[in-house]
């Protein structure tokens, strides 16, 4: 990689806006995987996440002039991706599509605790997570997968800490109900 990679996100955004379009590739490389795990857990499949991240990166380029603070490109990209994830859910609902199956077998549960059993449990849990509302799923993913604090999640989502906790607690109960047969 050449020395221009030392440039900050803001510098690259400005360079791209000034016409050096090829440098957008640096931003793509830097941020492609940053929110990938979030997208996978929100959408339920690797393929859907790839599509969403790809769309978000292209949309971010289309509207790059609207990025109010170029140094904060990552946060702005996340907003676009987040909207895309919620839009995907709304589209799935409209078309009465089932959320995609998470990777993992659908074997009947048994009482042993080997790696296969753990994988199966993880798959079942992911399917259950996809049954939550998108808002519940998001707070669960941000708190328990990305390990953010409620205050940080509040900053990202614009919700208050109190309403986030309420959502989270409902999600806990819902998951317990959905996972009943695996306990």
């Amino acid at each position, binding site marked *: 990689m050449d020395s221009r990679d030392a440039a900050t996100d803001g510098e690259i955004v400005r360079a791209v806006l000034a016409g050096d379009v090829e440098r957008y590739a640096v931003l793509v490389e830097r941020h492609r995987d940053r929110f990938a795990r979030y997208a996978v857990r929100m959408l339920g499949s690797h393929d859907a996440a790839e599509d969403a991240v790809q769309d978000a990166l292209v949309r971010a380029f289309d509207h790059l002039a609207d990025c*109010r603070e170029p140094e904060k490109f990552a946060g702005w990209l996340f907003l676009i991706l987040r909207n895309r994830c919620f839009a995907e859910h709304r589209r799935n609902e409209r078309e009465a599509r089932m959320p995609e199956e998470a990777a993992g077998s659908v074997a009947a549960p048994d009482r042993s605790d080997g790696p296969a059993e753990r994988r199966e449990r993880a798959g079942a849990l992911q399917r259950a997570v996809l049954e939550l509302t998108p808002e519940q799923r998001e707070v669960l993913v941000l708190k328990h997968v990305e390990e953010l604090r409620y205050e940080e999640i509040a900053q990202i989502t614009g919700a208050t800490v109190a309403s986030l906790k309420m959502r989270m607690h409902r999600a806990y109960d819902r998951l317990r109900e959905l996972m009943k047969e695996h306990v």
Partner: protein
Amino acid sequence: MRLFWLTAAIAVAAHLPTRSALAAQDVAARLEGRAPATVVRAVQTIAQDAAARGLPVEPLIQKTLEGSAKGVPPERVVAAVRLLAARLDEARTALQGAGIATPGSEALEGGAYALSAGLSADQVRDLGRVSRPLYDPALTLHIAATLTALGVPAPRGVQLLRHMIQSGRTPNDLLDLPGEVQASMARGASAAEAVEALDIEDGGLGHQGHQGEEGQARQHPHRP
């Protein structure tokens, strides 16, 4: 991984719209992620008060951004912003005393800047009076402040500017003044001597005493 998210959390907040009203909304939106919450709250209050009194809020936001960028402790940032708001108020009174009914934001900032450089309210008023209608008071105030910072006694600097303006010199000529004073001083002159030399060039004003000259109107022969 969590570090990525921490920066993203702050970054996202910068792009989200806020819901508070008027000047406070502007302040919060501009400062979120750039200054600690205690500073933002304090500056919001100062800004709301300033806006209610018809003073510009932008310089207060800039001063907050500056202090936070420089790593200044929160109490000191808030104190500087409060002081700036007071100076903007004082500058407005002075410029209104000069006959400028509604001084613009830049003129007020220039006045606040001049006050912080050590000019008195009366000197700000004098410069406001002499800077119209073709000369931007913001510019003359900044030049006067710079001359003071170079060591030119404030009344002397104000007088020099008044003479230059009355002689019909262009605003760019005024802009050259600090550089010329500096160049003279580099050659060994004192600030006061440098100014006298400039004044002499300007129409034979000769030696002037340094006492009690503010606000006095003088007739001077103009250069042909």
